[in-house]
């Protein structure tokens, strides 16, 4: 059973997705418990796999016993395992949150919603653990197709946003597929590790076809992760989608694509080719600086809460792309750490945005009015997420930014450091503005603590347990990741150091 743990990551959500589709039509009540159970199973499998990786190093799992390069391989090392744990637990938390929201927002499509939800998690987890370039494309499309539908289930404007996402997402995935095609022409292999071996053994790095492959794959992945000039599809999709959809897509899709980028640069093309031979680092770091600034400044201009958060995601993508392309070991560690931290902090603030929307029905910041009085616990959860996005210790966001900034200084990219600091300041402005509205409110507070009458406005009304618990768990995880940052960084360092990325000033 333990040996099969990599496969068991994917099997529960996938099979239960089919089951939910079959029985959910008649028995709507079973959809939610089945979804939560299957994702819990997936989380357990991920954690077991992570433990095995920490103890015994890389796990290679051959599907149906076919050895690579002919068969499909799941190859799980420290990076994979950490991201897989993140993806599955974010999925589980969002699923718990969805209990009341899905029937409220899509009353006649509950079983379809959960089927798509589970398939999305399956696709994302598949992308994370697979070691096969073409398999990654298929999983990418599984995740993409389900997320189009999950977004389109929202109100009017979400449908148009979903349509744009279909077009952009297809271009991105097709570019990736083309790039894999060129790699296949040159190497005759689709297994990521095998491709790298063949490229190295035959010294194919100078070949223009490999360069074309690299450009195609990188641009394709950038479109999918909404890297700044290619981000147009993201803000409206995440802002108008059903709240559960944005709580799952916002944290995961972009982060998994960044994982894919790291996997391709480190494993397929190799550090030497990407960072030294190509000499793209400077340009890409400048692009990421633009992405950070553009994302943050656009966020400042928004009045719609979820749209503001969507622009923050674009800024965060800039952080991570920049961190990877600093070509510095500390920067790479920071980028990987930030994938994990950012998934949870984005989940935290999106869950809060969902709760706020559920409570008040308002989309803009005025919904925050006086909420400290009404739901103090929920606000505490939100504060942790907000502090993490700003980067206040001991939350996870502080430590990831710490490593990213250190990487920026080590490699001499001060523009990146400055952009990070400006973005943190803007985040502080954004969130303290919200906190101010929530604490002091626009209206004067009439009731004091002794007034416990459940008068419509002044009384306390926390979010329901199914929404509050995931929010508080996420906040706790953010603090835990922050406090135990050394252990986490130790795992990441074990993964990164064999690649010999240069560190220190050059």
């Amino acid at each position: 059973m333990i040996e099969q743990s990599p496969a068991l990551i994917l099997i529960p959500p996938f099979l239960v997705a089919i089951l939910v589709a079959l029985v959910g039509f008649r028995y709507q009540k079973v959809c939610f418990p089945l979804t939560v159970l299957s994702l819990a199973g997936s989380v357990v499998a991920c954690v077991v796999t992570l433990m095995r990786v920490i103890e015994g190093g890389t796990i290679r799992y051959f599907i149906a016993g076919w050895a690579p390069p002919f068969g499909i391989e799941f190859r799980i090392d420290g990076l994979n395992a950490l991201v897989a744990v993140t993806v599955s637990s974010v999925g589980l938390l969002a699923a718990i949150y969805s209990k009341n929201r899905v029937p409220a927002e899509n009353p006649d499509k509950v079983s379809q919603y959960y089927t798509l939800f589970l398939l999305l998690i399956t696709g994302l987890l598949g992308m994370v653990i697979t070691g096969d370039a073409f398999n990654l494309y298929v999983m990418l499309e599984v995740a993409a197709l389900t997320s189009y539908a999950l977004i389109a289930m929202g109100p009017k404007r979400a449908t148009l946003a979903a349509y744009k996402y279909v077009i952009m997402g297809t271009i991105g995935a097709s570019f990736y597929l083309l790039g894999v095609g060129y790699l296949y022409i040159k190497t005759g292999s689709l297994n990521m590790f095998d491709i790298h071996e063949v490229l190295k053994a035959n010294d194919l790095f100078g070949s223009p076809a490999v360069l074309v492959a690299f450009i195609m794959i990188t641009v394709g992945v950038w479109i999918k992760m909404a890297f700044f000039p290619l981000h147009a599809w993201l803000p409206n999709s995440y802002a108008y989608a059903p709240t559960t959809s944005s709580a799952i897509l916002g944290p995961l899709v972009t982060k998994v694509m960044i994982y894919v980028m790291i996997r391709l640069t480190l494993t397929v093309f190799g550090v030497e080719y990407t960072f030294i031979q190509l000499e793209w680092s400077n340009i890409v770091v400048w692009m990421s600086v633009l992405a950070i600034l553009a994302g943050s400044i656009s966020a400042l201009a928004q009045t719609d809460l979820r749209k503001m958060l969507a622009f923050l995601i674009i800024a965060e993508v800039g952080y991570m792309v920049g961190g990877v392309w600093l070509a510095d070991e500390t920067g790479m560690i920071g980028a990987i750490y930030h994938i994990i931290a950012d998934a949870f902090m984005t989940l935290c603030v999106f869950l809060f945005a969902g709760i706020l929307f559920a409570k008040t029905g308002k989309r803009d910041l005025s919904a925050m009015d006086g909420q400290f009085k009404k739901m103090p616990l929920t606000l505490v959860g939100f504060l942790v997420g907000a502090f993490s996005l700003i980067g206040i210790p001991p939350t996870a966001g502080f430590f990831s930014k710490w490593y990213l900034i250190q990487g920026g200084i080590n490699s001499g990219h001060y523009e990146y450091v400055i952009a990070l600091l400006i973005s943190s300041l803007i985040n502080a402005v954004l969130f303290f503005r919200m906190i101010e509205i929530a604490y002091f409110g626009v209206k004067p507070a009439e009731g004091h603590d002794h007034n416990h009458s459940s008068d419509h406005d002044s009384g306390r009304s926390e979010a329901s347990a199914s929404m509050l618990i995931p929010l508080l768990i996420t906040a706790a995880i953010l603090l835990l990741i922050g406090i135990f940052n050394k252990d986490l960084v130790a795992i990441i360092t074990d993964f990164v150091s064999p690649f010999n990325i240069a560190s220190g000033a050059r």
Partner: protein
Amino acid sequence: MELFEAISTKINYWVYIVIMMIGLFAMISKNNLIKKLIGMSIFQTAIILFYVSIGVKEGATIPILYHDQVHAAHGDHGEADTSHGEHGAVESHEADIHINPDDFTNPLVHVLMLTAIVVGVSTLGVGLAITQKLHREFGSIEEHEILEIIKSGK
């Protein structure tokens, strides 16, 4: 003449690029949502053409061994071998028969494209379903009309 050679020897790549650009043009410039989806379909088909064409060789055939090829090389041992199980049989074939890889096309890319066709069809399906939903909600499938409705609705 050099240009002609560069085009004629790599005609499949030129053709796929041209088709892909037609698709991309339609996706970007067309106003009608269905036309955009048609462009997307053309775009994906171009990639399928690219993949299929890289597996093709001149004068090659599908990678299936003919019975007499196996039989001639194997003589009478063929039947005895099969009783040892599949694995043993395959190994002895490899030892005895000389197979020229140039005689066979590469089947892998074609198999990959079966998956890509499925993906393309489902993307088109999702796209059409979303267009239908847009039509139900806005009463139009022209992008500028939808945008105007959204603007005036505010």
